[in-house]
């Protein structure tokens, strides 16, 4: 990314100087501590630069001094909204490096809970995106749904948000006693709620005016930048790691991939809404097919993956979240690198925003669904 020269101003068409506006780290709509430096001509964005790093906590360096099972809670704090998926990347990477045989019941439960987390993350995205564009009611309705999911997480894992859900080799506990009933109840109520959000937003001409044609990115550009997740699928590329490299129990699940057309904000909005429905479908199937059995594999007391490097990624709610693990055969990794989807997605921000107005910048940041914890690590 090039550097924006903040000290100088250029004269623009009407002989009025440009304004450099700092959507600073403290801002109601930058979804965390993101600093966006905008160069404006009136209200049109001519140039944009992102300044990140405010939430950098040195997680990758810390991981070099911890044992493998101790690193798992750090992963929750990356994308704190999708903590369960993040945990899944880590444990699956280590398990696959060590060649552990995770029992099928654990795979299915992982699928159910990860999909619940995807729904929770998309609901929060809908809430904040709606709030940014001005529709306050969607915020509260989506959070009402998310509350149900967080209650399930609390009963299962003991925490609502950063759950430390998985252990290397399986799960810490089996599903709690009312798990199937709770999840089934949620799954039964959910389609009606998605329809409510759609009624409020999808055909609303103000919503259409704010999202259609805003933040367009073509499929070629998306692939070139390395976008993943709903941002990529909104541009028309049917790529989902759950289909192309299935993990957990996804190989047995029957679901579709929603794909957009134009790559604008409206398409990404529709894609995520449809993903809510598909996730519900996956959860229903996994609940029906849930096998019995243990939930833990036999794991050695000292976890020492063989020396070498390994990359594994899953389809998190925001995109492809990956873990590149270099092991030197000891109980601590030599290097852990997170492939953060939001970091890569954020690189598309400049291309998406130039030429739009400030109000659109807020909408585009919302549609990329960034979480600064993951960008800064």
């Amino acid at each position, binding site marked *: 990314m090039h550097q924006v020269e903040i000290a100088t101003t250029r004269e623009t068409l009407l002989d009025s100087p440009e*304004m450099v*506006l700092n959507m600073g780290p403290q801002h*109601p709509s930058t979804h965390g501590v993101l600093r966006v430096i905008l160069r404006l001509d009136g*209200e049109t964005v001519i140039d944009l630069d992102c300044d990140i790093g405010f939430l950098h906590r040195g997680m990758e360096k810390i991981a070099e001094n911890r044992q493998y099972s101790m690193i798992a809670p750090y992963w929750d704090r990356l994308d704190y909204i999708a903590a369960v998926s993040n945990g899944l990347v880590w444990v699956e990477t280590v398990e*696959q*490096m060590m*060649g552990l045989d995770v029992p099928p019941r654990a795979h299915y439960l992982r699928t159910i809970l990860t999909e619940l987390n995807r729904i929770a993350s998309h609901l929060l995205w809908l809430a904040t995106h*709606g709030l*940014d*564009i*001005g*529709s*306050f*009611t969607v915020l*509260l*309705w989506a959070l*009402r749904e998310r509350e149900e999911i967080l209650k399930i997480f609390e009963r299962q894992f003991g925490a609502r948000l950063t759950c430390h859900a998985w252990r290397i080799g399986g799960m810490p506990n089996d599903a709690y006693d009312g798990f199937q009933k709770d999840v089934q109840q949620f799954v039964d109520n959910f389609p009606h709620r998605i329809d409510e959000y759609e009624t*409020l*937003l*999808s*055909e*609303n*001409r*103000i919503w*259409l*005016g*704010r999202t*259609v*044609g805003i933040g367009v990115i073509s499929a070629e550009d998306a692939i070139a930048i390395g976008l993943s997740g709903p941002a990529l699928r909104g541009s028309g590329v*049917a790529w*989902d790691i759950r*289909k*192309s*490299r*299935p*993990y957990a129990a996804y*190989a047995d699940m029957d679901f*579709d*991939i*929603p*794909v*957009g*057309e134009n790559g604008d904000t*409206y398409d990404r909005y*529709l*894609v995520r809404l*449809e993903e809510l429905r598909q996730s519900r479908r996956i959860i229903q199937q996994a609940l029906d097919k849930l096998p019995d059995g243990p939930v833990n594999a*036999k794991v*050695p*007391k*000292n976890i020492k993956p*063989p020396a*070498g490097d*390994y990359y*594994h990624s899953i389809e998190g709610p925001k995109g492809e979240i990956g873990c590149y693990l270099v092991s030197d055969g000891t109980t601590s990794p030599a290097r852990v690198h997170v492939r953060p989807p939001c970091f890569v997605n954020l690189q598309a921000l400049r291309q998406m925003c130039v030429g739009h*107005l*400030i*109000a*659109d910048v*807020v909408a585009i940041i919302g549609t990329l669904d960034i979480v600064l914890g993951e960008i800064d690590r």
Partner: protein
Amino acid sequence: MLLYFAPNFIDSLLLKLFSQETINFVIWPFIQIGAVVTGVAVWALYATYAERKISAFMQARLGPMRVGKWGLLQPLADALKLLTKEDVTPDKADPYIFKFAPYIAVASAFVVFAVIPFAPSWGVITDVNIGLLLVLSISSVGVLALILAGWSSNSKYSLMGGLRSSAQMVSYEVAMGLSLIGALMFARTLSLSGIVNAQAVDGPLPYLFYQPLGFITFLIAGIAENNRAPFDLPEAESELVAGFHTEYSGMRWSLFFMAEYAAMVVVSAVATAVYLGGWYLPGVYRLTENYHQVALLSGNLDGAPLYHGLFVIIGIVVFMIKMAVILYVYFWLRWTFPRYRYDQLMDLGWKWLIPATLTNIIWTATAIFAVQALNGWHGMKTIESISQGLNLTSSGKAVMIGFGFTGLLVTAGVLSTINWRSRDFNLKGQRRDIRLVKNVPQGEPAVLPPGPTPAASEG
């Protein structure tokens, strides 16, 4: 009777000290002003409470519940809190203008209430015969407050908020003024009491039925004028933190807040007076036939003193209820719709509302001409007399209502013609579904790396 007793008593008390003239023109107006200002302030305060409760119920939650029963004392708690906050003035801000701007906003919002007709005789402080013009022009002064606030805060966010809001308010004031002209053609007077009287005389139907387009455009323009959602870009929390009042805190901020809610009450009051019939309610009039015939048409209030006080009180209550309905519409719109972007907002004001209001004026003129021309056609008598108001008979009213609603269709046609090339026009057609890709080739699951097996498990 009791209602008539108190004013008489105060009157007799004051007569001892002042002359009758002083009492009528100086003392009573001050008492009225005090009552109205207090009333409006309380209205604005409890409008905030009503907004929080209504929005809460729309959003599946309860709203303020702790301060007082059902949170009824919440506005007082808020006012107290704001009064005790620290007085912060930004360092580089222009101190005099910064401190003065909120007062302009509040003053312009409150002064308007001098001409609003809450009730027939003593319910209006001063019935100026250009009342409506006064309302529009004093509301315009409120724009000055926004510009000054935005500029004097010496902050880019506030500046942008002030610029946006001033442009927005000026555009929508044009639409607001034009939308009232249709109703004025019926009432033939600018005085707000006169407009309400004209609706009373013209029969049980308020001007809403003759002028549906006028009402809708007035309401939309009024909402935009008040910087309320979906037109609240100047104070868009998501983008500009708080727009022109970013740098204000404590009592100064609460003055802007009060000014906004008082302006909402102003627009509701004007809409009620002009389109919903103000304090007029058909049933109540029939209770006081004498009063109706004698007092109203001749402007003489000595007709039926027994009913006088009660009738005025009922008028005030009816007016408040109608105002409350429009305020409810305000809240409902805010919590349902997203926010317009700035250029879309200006688009809406200039290319949609102003042509609509102009069409409305032309169409209303056509309607009045048609009603007069149809008088006596095939024995249909449409007008009784054109002395005050339009005095339509029922067939005349039917013709007017027909014109009113066909006016909506005509305007839809005009707007489509003007805007058919704009992106905004064909948005419904842009609503599309995403496609579901069903048979994505399924890849191989992640492969285990070849390598030395882990050490023998130890449990």
